[in-house]
């Protein structure tokens, strides 16, 4: 963490009504991890070039989805499910910290970038909607993430260590989403209708997951292979849940997918404003 978010820098990014001694106190500050007792990811050398861009892309996916899931805190349909979603959100936050730390300073990257600088896919920034929308988003993303991280962990590239740790977490996320997809799809008339609307509504965001990402160190044929496997797995889950596989476009003009280029959908700006507000309003504040 650098200590350069002085009043000058903060004036450009937000109202500088933080504590006057904020900057001074950061000089000797060992960092957030030391304050909160959570280990800060360290050790791995910073990446540059294409691998750094890829770290940013995967890190932003995890960070943004983590924040979306955290929005359920206090609003989930049942207490048990609230804890489940919060657990998943925290897993993703851990992944985001490791990945963003490979690309730069995690706090600066999370809290001080503008919307256009985020490289996450548009799927993860979509609003929570009802519980079915959240589950459909989880299903699409976690199946993709499991396929990708399994390959990254086996590949021995710059992301092998992070992926090996995350792949067990992700397997649980996928199982959670599958279990709920089956129950909502094959549940009541209303749950079936809502789950069906959710998988259809998010379908056009799923092609972007398989845009080749330079710097991952994967085989050039990997994205196409992952996409085929993803389609197969999704079709199997939806079939068991008595839902039809959506037939809308996943690629091309009518599909979504420019998140990796920094273009995001409208709800993302509001999410970011909430996520970054505290850090930008009180630069250098500490607990």
């Amino acid at each position: 963490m650098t200590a350069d978010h002085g009043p000058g820098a903060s004036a450009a990014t937000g109202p500088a009504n933080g504590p006057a001694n904020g900057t001074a106190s950061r000089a000797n500050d060992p960092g957030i991890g030391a304050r909160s007792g959570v280990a800060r990811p360290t050790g791995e050398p910073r990446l540059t070039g294409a691998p750094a861009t890829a770290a940013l892309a995967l890190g932003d996916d995890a960070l943004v989805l983590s924040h979306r899931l955290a929005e359920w805190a206090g609003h989930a349909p049942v207490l048990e499910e609230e804890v489940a979603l919060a657990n998943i959100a925290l897993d993703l936050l851990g992944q985001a910290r490791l990945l963003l730390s490979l690309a730069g300073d995690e706090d600066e990257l999370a809290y001080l970038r503008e919307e256009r600088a985020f490289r996450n896919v548009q799927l993860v920034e979509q609003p929570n909607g009802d519980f079915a929308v959240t589950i459909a988003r989880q299903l699409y993303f976690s199946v993709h993430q499991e396929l990708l991280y399994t390959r990254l962990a086996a590949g021995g590239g710059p992301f092998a260590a992070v992926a090996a740790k995350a792949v067990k977490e992700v397997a649980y996320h996928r199982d959670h989403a599958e279990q709920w997809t089956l129950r909502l799809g094959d549940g009541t008339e209303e749950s079936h209708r809502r789950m069906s609307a959710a998988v259809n509504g998010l379908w056009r965001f799923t092609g972007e997951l398989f845009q080749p990402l330079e710097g991952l160190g994967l085989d050039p044929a990997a994205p196409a292979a992952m996409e085929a496997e993803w389609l197969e797995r999704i079709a199997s889950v939806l079939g068991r849940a008595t839902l039809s596989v959506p037939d809308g476009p996943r690629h091309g003009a009518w599909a979504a997918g420019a998140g990796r280029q920094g273009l995001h959908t409208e709800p993302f700006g509001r999410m970011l404003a909430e996520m970054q507000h505290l850090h930008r309003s009180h630069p250098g504040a500490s607990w």
Partner: protein
Amino acid sequence: MSHDDWPLWEVFVRSRRGLSHTHAGSLHAPDAELALRNARDLYTRRAEGVSIWVVPSAAVAASSPDEKDAFFDPAADKPYRHPTFYDIPEGVRHL
């Protein structure tokens, strides 16, 4: 389905160093599979366990508080039932 319809489940967790499952608490879930997953999220998130049982609370037969005296008091004044009155014979170890 509203939360009120969800049955209650009792959760038993075997800790890393324990030999038997110990009652950890209870939770609501629509079925056994999700009860296991909820138990994993609620009761083992700090690495407390290596194995979980969930049991429908309705399947637990419990002694009634009204019968407490008849059930348990008679044992209270029979200390000779504890094996503390015997001298341990020589040569017996691990007792």
